[in-house]
C-alpha cells in the first residue's frame, strides 16, 4: 500500500491524515515500518511530556487543565492516552476523553485514545509511533498518558523527556515511597487533589524519600545499567488541584525548569541516544520473537527436539541454543 498521499497531508497539518496514519501503525506493523521510515526525518521537534500514576489519581483531568494553559499560549498540543485492553476478550473501554471535554473544541488540540493491546509497561506498542506521527503533524508539545499504573510500569521514562508522576493523598505510607519502580523515574511529583486531607503528609513522605537518597547516596555501579538516571536533577514536588487549577502556574514553571536543565546539560543527548537504543531493542525483540514463533510452529526438526526433551536426553536450555543455531543469528 502507498501511504505517500496521507504522509503528504500529514506534513501540511491535516488532522484526518494524522488519525488515519495512527490507525495504520496501530493495526499493522509493516505499515508502521513504512510510515515511520517516511516521516522520521520530520520528527524531533516536539517536547514529550509523560504523565503517569495510579488509576484514579486524576491524570486525564490534570492533562485537561494543563492543555488549556498551553493552548492559551498558542501551542499546538498532541495527547495520546493509553487505557488497558481486556486480557479475556481483547476489548477495551477508552474513557480518557470524558475528562477532556473542554479541550475538544480547541483548535490546536489533537487527542487520541489507544488501548494497550496487552503490552505491559504502561504504554501500547504503537504509542511511540503515534507520538512520532503527532510530532510530524506539527505538535509543539505531546502529552502521553499511561494506563493507570501500579509500581513497575516504567516504560514512559524511556519515551518522554520529562516524566510527571501523579499521586493522591491517602494511598500508601512512607515505605511505599522508597520502593523501586515509578518513584525512581520521576522528574516532577504532583500531589493531585490537594484539597483532600493528607496532601501535606504525602509531600513529607516524598520529600523524606528523596532526602534519604541525597544524604546517603550509594554510588552503585548498577545505576544506569539499564537506563541512565537523569543524574543531577533533584525531583521537584508540587501539590495541585486539577479542577480549580490551583498551583498550575507553579507546575508549568517546574516543567520549564526541567526543560532548561535538559537543554543545558548533556542529559538530553544521553536521553536521545538511549531512547534510540531502547526503541531499536524493542523493535528487534518484536521481530525476532515473530521469527522464532514462526520457526517453532513450522520447522520440522522442532518436533524431534521436543521428543528429545521429553526423553530427558535434551534440556530446554540446550533446545533453545539449537533453535538459535537454526535461526542463524548466533
Amino acid at each position, binding site marked *: 500500500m502507498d501511504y505517500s498521499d496521507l504522509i503528504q497531508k500529514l506534513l501540511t497539518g491535516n*488532522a*484526518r491524515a*494524522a*488519525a*488515519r496514519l*495512527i*490507525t495504520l501503525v496501530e*493495526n*499493522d*506493523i*509493516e505499515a508502521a515500518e513504512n510510515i515511520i521510515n517516511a516521516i522520521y526525518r520530520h520528527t524531533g521537534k516536539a517536547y514529550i511530556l509523560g504523565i503517569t500514576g495510579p488509576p484514579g489519581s486524576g491524570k486525564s483531568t490534570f492533562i485537561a487543565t494543563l492543555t488549556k494553559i498551553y493552548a492559551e499560549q498558542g501551542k499546538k498540543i498532541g495527547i495520546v492516552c493509553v487505557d488497558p*485492553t*481486556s486480557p479475556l*476478550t*481483547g*476489548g*477495551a*473501554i*477508552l*474513557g480518557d*476523553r*470524558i475528562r477532556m*471535554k473542554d479541550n*475538544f*473544541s480547541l483548535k490546536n488540540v*489533537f*487527542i*487520541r*485514545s489507544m*488501548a494497550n*493491546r496487552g503490552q505491559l509497561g504502561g504504554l501500547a506498542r504503537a504509542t511511540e509511533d503515534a507520538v512520532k506521527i503527532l510530532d510530524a503533524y506539527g505538535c509543539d508539545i505531546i502529552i502521553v498518558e499511561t494506563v493507570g499504573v501500579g509500581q513497575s510500569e516504567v516504560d514512559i521514562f524511556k519515551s518522554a523527556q520529562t516524566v510527571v508522576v501523579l499521586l493522591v493523598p491517602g494511598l500508601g505510607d512512607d515505605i511505599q515511597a522508597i520502593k523501586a519502580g515509578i518513584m525512581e523515574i520521576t522528574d516532577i511529583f504532583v500531589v493531585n487533589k490537594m484539597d483532600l486531607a493528607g496532601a501535606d503528609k504525602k509531600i513529607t513522605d516524598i520529600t523524606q524519600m528523596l532526602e534519604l537518597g541525597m544524604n546517603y547516596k550509594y554510588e552503585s555501579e548498577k545505576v544506569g545499567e539499564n537506563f541512565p538516571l537523569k543524574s543531577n536533577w533533584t525531583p521537584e514536588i508540587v501539590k495541585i488541584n486539577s479542577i480549580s487549577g490551583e498551583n498550575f502556574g507553579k507546575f508549568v514553571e517546574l516543567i520549564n525548569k526541567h526543560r532548561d536543565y535538559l537543554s543545558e546539560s548533556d542529559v538530553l543527548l544521553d536521553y536521545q541516544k538511549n531512547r534510540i537504543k531502547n526503541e531499536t531493542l524493542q523493535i528487534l525483540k518484536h521481530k525476532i520473537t*515473530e521469527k522464532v514463533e514462526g520457526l517453532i510452529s513450522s520447522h520440522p526438526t522442532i518436533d524431534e527436539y521436543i521428543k528429545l526433551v521429553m526423553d530427558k536426553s535434551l534440556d530446554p536450555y540446550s533446545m533453545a541454543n539449537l533453535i538459535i543455531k537454526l535461526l542463524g543469528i548466533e
Partner: protein
Amino acid sequence: MTDNRKIKVLVCKPGLDGHDRGAKVLARALRDAGMEVIYTGLHQTPDMIVQTVLQEDPDAVMLSMLSGAHKALCPVIMDKLKENDIDDVLVSVGGIIPDEDKPFLEEHGLKGFYGPGTQLKTIVEFVKNNLKR
C-alpha cells in the same frame, strides 16, 4: 500482512440528555465482543462528536439519544461529517426513536435505531455486519 485490526467504536450522548446507562451497557457489551470502545461522556455537541471522529478514526459511531432531539441533531452531525470528507464510518442512532422518524433519519444516512429491550447480541452483530471498511 501482519494485520491485527480491531473494531473501534465511538459511543456518545449528543445534546442535553443526562441518561447514559444504556450507553454504558452498550459500551460494555461492545468491549466484551472484543472491540475498542471510546466513551466520551454526556452533553456532546455535533462539533465535539465530529472532532472526536476526526481524531480517533473509529469504524463506527453509536449515538444514544433518549431526549427526542434526534431529528434536530443527527442531520447536523451527518452534514458536519460530510464537510470533513468522512464517509466511511458507520453511524447509528439508538435509544428512543419513534418509528415515524426512522425514514427521515435513514435518508440522512443513519442506521440501527435499536431501542429498549433489544438484545445486546443483536447490536454487536449489527456493528460487525455494517462496517463500511
